[in-house]
């Protein structure tokens, strides 16, 4: 019996000690950033965050979810800083009193990707709404995020410009995956569908299969990222000072330089465009 007894005792002790260890580890100064999957999946944050930590000693813990969920989490006060890409939603977030102020950080653009044989014939087009109208009329498959993320909001805006109501086609040629950009790209690759992706996630994505960029370069595909300090007056647990330090760094020269120098396969993924970190 002794083996079994000691094993059970050991497992219990191990479990409890592990629990205690883990709780003790949360003592250092850190902030939680609610962010979008594109900044994490592309590898940008892994690249620049260590530089920030080296300088300030503040650890940045990134929760990477869709913009919709990030906004919701931050509105609950679960996070100190919000780094997302859906400007109208961000402005509403501040208007609701959840955030202090919004700063531009960087931009890139969205691209419309699809199978190389291009059944809808949109290759080379630079008018994104027109290309999407063409996909709709051809009945070719289109994979949508369908998750209320920044990318999804942008996609819906483009359908509107194209005067197409894709909801009517939901389940036929319009496939809503209800998941992140990566999962949606995986689905598009599997189904041979068109989809819209931010360029950063697309370039860093490793399972392109038969997909290729077919439409790009439309100003309306512009993708602006903003950063917001969660309102400490509404959410007292917010680490306002450390959060602001991060925002200042990200929109300041060092952060901007870090963003500019981040490349995947020799291509720059994000373009810094912070105007000033001083509030106006």
């Amino acid at each position, binding site marked *: 019996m*002794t083996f*079994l007894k000691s094993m059970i005792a050991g497992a219990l002790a191990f479990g*409890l000690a592990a629990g205690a260890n883990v709780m003790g580890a949360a003592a250092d100064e850190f902030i939680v950033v609610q962010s979008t*999957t594109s900044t994490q999946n592309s590898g940008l944050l892994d690249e620049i965050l260590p530089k920030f930590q080296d300088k300030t000693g503040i650890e940045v813990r990134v929760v990477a979810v869709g913009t919709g969920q990030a906004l919701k989490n931050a509105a609950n006060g679960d996070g100190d800083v919000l780094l997302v890409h859906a400007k109208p939603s961000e402005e509403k977030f501040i208007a609701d009193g959840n955030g202090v102020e919004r700063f531009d950080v960087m931009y890139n653009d969205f691209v419309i990707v699809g199978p190389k044989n291009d059944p809808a014939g949109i290759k080379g087009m630079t008018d994104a709404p027109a290309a999407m109208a063409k996909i709709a009329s051809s009945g070719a498959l289109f994979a949508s995020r369908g998750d209320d993320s920044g990318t999804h909001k942008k996609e819906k805006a483009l359908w509107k410009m194209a005067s197409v109501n894709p909801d009517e086609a939901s389940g036929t040629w319009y496939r809503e995956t209800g998941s992140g950009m990566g999962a949606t790209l995986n689905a598009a690759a599997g189904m041979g569908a068109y989809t819209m992706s931010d360029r950063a996630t697309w370039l860093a994505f490793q399972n392109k299969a038969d997909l290729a960029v077919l439409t790009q370069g439309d100003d309306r595909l512009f993708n602006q990222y903003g950063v917001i300090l969660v309102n400490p007056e509404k959410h007292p*647990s917010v680490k306002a000072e450390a959060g602001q330090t991060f925002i200042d760094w990200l929109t300041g020269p060092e952060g901007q330089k870090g963003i500019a120098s981040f490349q995947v396969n020799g291509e720059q993924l994000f373009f810094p465009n912070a105007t000033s970190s001083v509030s106006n």
Partner: protein
Amino acid sequence: MQDFAQSFYLAGQLLISGDPELGEVVALSLRVTASALAISALIGLPLGALLAVARFQGRTALTVLANALMGLPPVVVGLTVYMLLSNAGPLGVLQLLYTPTAMIIAQSILITPIIIALTRQVIADLNAEYSETFRSLVVPGHTAIIALLWDARFSILTVLLAGFGRAIAEVGAVMIVGGNINHVTRVMTTAIALETSRGELALALALGMVLLLIALSVNGAVSLLKGVDRSTAHA
């Protein structure tokens, strides 16, 4: 598909090279799940045995409830724990969201019904055999429960392994309450989800193989211990 071959290769490479990041993620997975299992066992074993042995009003309803809760979707558990631990929730003041402790809580909630329901079944079967003898000997209730749990220990180990398997393999709950934060709350399953969303399918599958290997090692170790225990018992 070449992904499979590549995954085997990558999995081997990860294990042989002793990748420190992988080690960290594996260690956290084990710590979180072992803690959750310890908590669930402390709650679930006595409760399950009590459901098997005691006669009281609502016992059947509780049994049905425990059985039904075995099918709890991890995402629902994660969401519930998130809403409790969120700064906007009732337990926000504890500041546990996005910590391993939150993940332990979520996994405990997820597997406690499994421990309760399976323990109840195991103990009820054994009690059917023992109960007349125990009544004849006038064995007090708590002594009977302890004796039943001890005598059913090999079956109980299998029950605990079922809980362990469910906890170590789930992703939905720990993703929501842990946030998959690198070096803080990233475990095997959330790492797999992340690599999948990066399109790194071969790496994701390789991590899955490592996870399977861990589960195999744990199960193997337990059955080895069972063997040792049995052989000493016969000596």
